[in-house]
């Protein structure tokens, strides 16, 4: 018998225990398809009073507010907030560039996706985890409730790097595949020579609450290179020859900072929450501190 994958491979038990206490927070209140534990704007049946409206023959007499009738001699119907579920999407950059670092950026992204997905499952949110290499017709299953934990973990564990065209086409396909509103967490290193801007624009068309977690390896943030090197791009095999010098490293860092700054600025202007994280930072630290600060979890 094949034992189900253990969530402990990606997430530690301690982290799991803490994640159960957390919930995903959306800056926007979205209408879910099923009743979950989210407060919805739609007025339905729940214990929490929301509003009055005039009685109309045919309404349920149980919800007539008799106190208001006694005072005003008119019939009014009580309205209550209906509890709904949250759509939570995770889109993982599965390009070859994510396969670097120690731990690899992809592993880091899988840990993050599993952790956030676990929070969502615990709160009966609709969790969907997809990768950028998926084509338009390749749909991932939707996980809901704790019973789907193992399936979700299994899916996440099986994620591997696969080549795809570029961020823009991947984002476009994702946007076309998924119509439901909710939270989208995009985990990527944004290392696409054709740029990330159009990809994010495609995602913005869906009015999702987008969180961009920009993952970079420690080697990318603080390159430890020496001598004369011929750099080979892992994705397109493009080569760049350099002679490492302190000046070159400094210029690289300046370029990196500029890159990060421009990405942050782009996101901020468009209402995308941006977070830069190194793979050297523990996932629980990222979730419990930084993601909480930006309001993704509480």
């Amino acid at each position, binding site marked *: 018998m094949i034992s189900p994958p253990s969530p402990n491979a990606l997430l530690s038990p301690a982290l799991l225990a803490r994640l159960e206490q957390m919930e995903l927070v959306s800056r926007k209140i979205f209408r879910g398809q099923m009743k979950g534990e989210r407060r919805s704007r739609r007025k339905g049946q729940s214990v929490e009073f929301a509003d009055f409206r005039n009685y109309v023959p045919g309404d349920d007499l149980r919800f007539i507010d008799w106190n208001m009738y006694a005072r005003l001699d008119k019939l009014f119907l009580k309205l209550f907030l209906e509890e709904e579920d949250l759509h939570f999407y995770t889109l993982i950059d599965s390009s*070859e*560039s*994510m*396969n*670097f*670092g120690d731990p690899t*950026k992809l592993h880091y992204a899988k840990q993050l996706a599993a952790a956030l997905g676990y929070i969502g499952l615990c709160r009966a949110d609709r969790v969907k985890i997809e990768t950028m290499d998926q084509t338009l017709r390749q749909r991932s299953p939707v996980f809901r409730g704790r019973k789907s934990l193992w399936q979700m973990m299994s899916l996440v564990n099986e994620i591997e790097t696969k080549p795809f065209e570029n961020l823009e086409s991947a984002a476009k396909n994702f946007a076309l595949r998924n119509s439901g509103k909710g939270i989208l967490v995009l985990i990527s*290193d944004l*290392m*696409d*020579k054709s740029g990330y801007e159009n990809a994010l624009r495609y995602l913005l068309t869906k009015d999702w609450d987008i969180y961009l977690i920009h993952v970079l*390896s420690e*080697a*990318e943030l603080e390159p430890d*290179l020496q*001598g*004369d*090197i*011929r*750099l*080979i*791009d*892992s*994705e397109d095999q*493009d*080569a*760049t*020859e*350099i*002679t490492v*010098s302190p*000046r*070159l490293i400094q*210029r*690289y860092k300046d*370029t*990196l900072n500029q*890159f990060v700054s421009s990405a942050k600025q782009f996101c901020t202007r468009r209402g995308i929450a941006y977070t830069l994280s190194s793979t050297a930072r523990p996932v629980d630290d990222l979730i419990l501190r930084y993601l909480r600060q930006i309001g993704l979890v509480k």
Partner: protein
Amino acid sequence: MALVPIAIVLLYFLKLRRNPLEVPSTYLWKRTVEDMHVNSLWQRLRNNLLLFLQILLILFLIATVLRPGCPGTELEGNRFILVVDNSASMAATDRDPSRLEMAKTKAHEVIENMQPNDVAMLIACSDQASIVQSYTSDKEALKSRLKQIKPTNRRSDISQALTAAAALANPGRTADRESESDVQVAEPNPAELYIFSDGRVQRIQQFSLGYLTPKYVQIGSPQPVNYAIIDFSLSVERVTEQKCNAFARIANFSSTDASLELLLYVNDELVDARTNVEIRSNDFQSLVFDLTDVLRDALTATTVRLEIETKDDLAADNIAYAIYRAPRPLDVLLVTTGNPQLESVLETGNLNKATNLTIESPQHLKSRQYEIAATQGQFDLIVFDRCEPQIAPESNCIFVGQIPAFDGWKKSELLAPVTIIDSAQVHPLMNNVLMNSVLVAEAYSLEGPYGTASLCDAAFGSVIAIGPRNEFEDVVVGFSIVDEDDTGTVFQNTDWPKHTAFPLFWKNAIDYFAKRISGSVVTGRQPGDQVSLYLPQSVEQAIVTTPDSTEIPIQKQKSSQTVFSRTEQLGVYKVSDDDELTLQKFAINLTDSNESNLEVVEKLQIGHEEFTGTSNEIDVRKEYWQWFVIGAIIVLLIEWIVYNRRVFI
């Protein structure tokens, strides 16, 4: 040098060995690094303009240092013409070891300072110019030829050297003056003309320097000391008392008075000496030595030598030679129809002793005997009295009452009256011959060939003259002594025979022609002069032995006279036949005041321009641009090394 650009290319392409390293993405690196797309050699070359420019610069610099060039007809760079004076005065030892060596040292400096593009020509100059080395940039060749320049005993005349130098430097000067179409044979090539000399040269007049820039380098000390024999001759009075005297003129070419010691040798035997001969500074002293008794019994050619024993800066002019030849009777032919007075003066007295007289009639001139005698020069002197030969004889002639039909003598009519107004007393023929009171009835006015000198003038012109004819001289007396009228009556045309001038004239004539033939008088034979040798009829070839005992064979050139020109050495030359019989001796002496005066000339005059000499270091321009070019190449190489250590920005 050729390896430098190769080294740069190798440095550029081979030096960097890069280790490959796979990275997530070169996206950010590309934005940092500007050196892109180095996948192939040609792409590097295409994209690296800096490499090309630096290689090109290196190639230009290397080419500059290597002095590229090719054979051409036009010279570039500076041109130098070095004229080294090797005349007699340059042998003076007032500069150690000699003036000539000092001149060669100075010329050596100029050669040494030549730049790679410069060319130089070397000319040795005395009274002849000799191009020792034609234009070349080969310093070693110039130095080698410079060493070969030897001193001579010749006089100084740089006009030939200037002509040779100007021929190349100045345009429009034809090489053939006779040709009207040969103009501007050479393009102008300006040149710097260095003249290394003491300046004791003949003044050069009417010379245009044109593109020549002369620089006169003085050679010599400020106060040289030299004593010289500037004249030495023997005078033999054969007709009278057979007296023989040696005349000498001594000069003191120094800035202080001198007391000299002189010694006189006859055939290397000391016969006379003069001590304490006082000569003031820059002054002369004449001396006479009586050699009558010493040379009385001399039968063969005798060498007389005068020496200045006092040491000075130039030894060549301290010795002079003269050759004494025992007098022999002059072979004289008198052709006359009858002239008792003339015959009498030649047959009597001392003239008779001095001559072997033969008297013939004019008909003799048509004889075969005369023809042979005339063409072979059997007579030393022929006197034609009122007649003339059909062909000019190989002898000196005296024409009395007849203008010869030789080239240059113009016929004229007999003129009368004849009033003699003057006679040339300075000429040896007219010495003490007073013609003023001589009466002449009629006479020809004489006009001879170029070089004719009038010995006696009448109111209408010359009546006695002497003119040259090849190696001979002809004396023409324009009036007859006796004549015949149409009836055959003999009449006296002049009372000249009644005057003492008549026998004196003939005595002077015999003496004059006797000295001329015997060569017993040495005057003015300088090194380089041509000497006429009188070879007997029977001698076809002879041997000339020079003072250093070199034997030079010569062939008889014409009749009894042959010209010998290899007279560079000072001393006595001996002419002998195949049987080693001495035929003749002659002496070559340095008796030129200009050469003996060693005072260095301050300014050299060439044409209308004067050039002040310099005795200091010769101003040359040293250029160091080659070192700067090499420095630039080194800097460029260092730049490449440093540059390649960095990232290509």
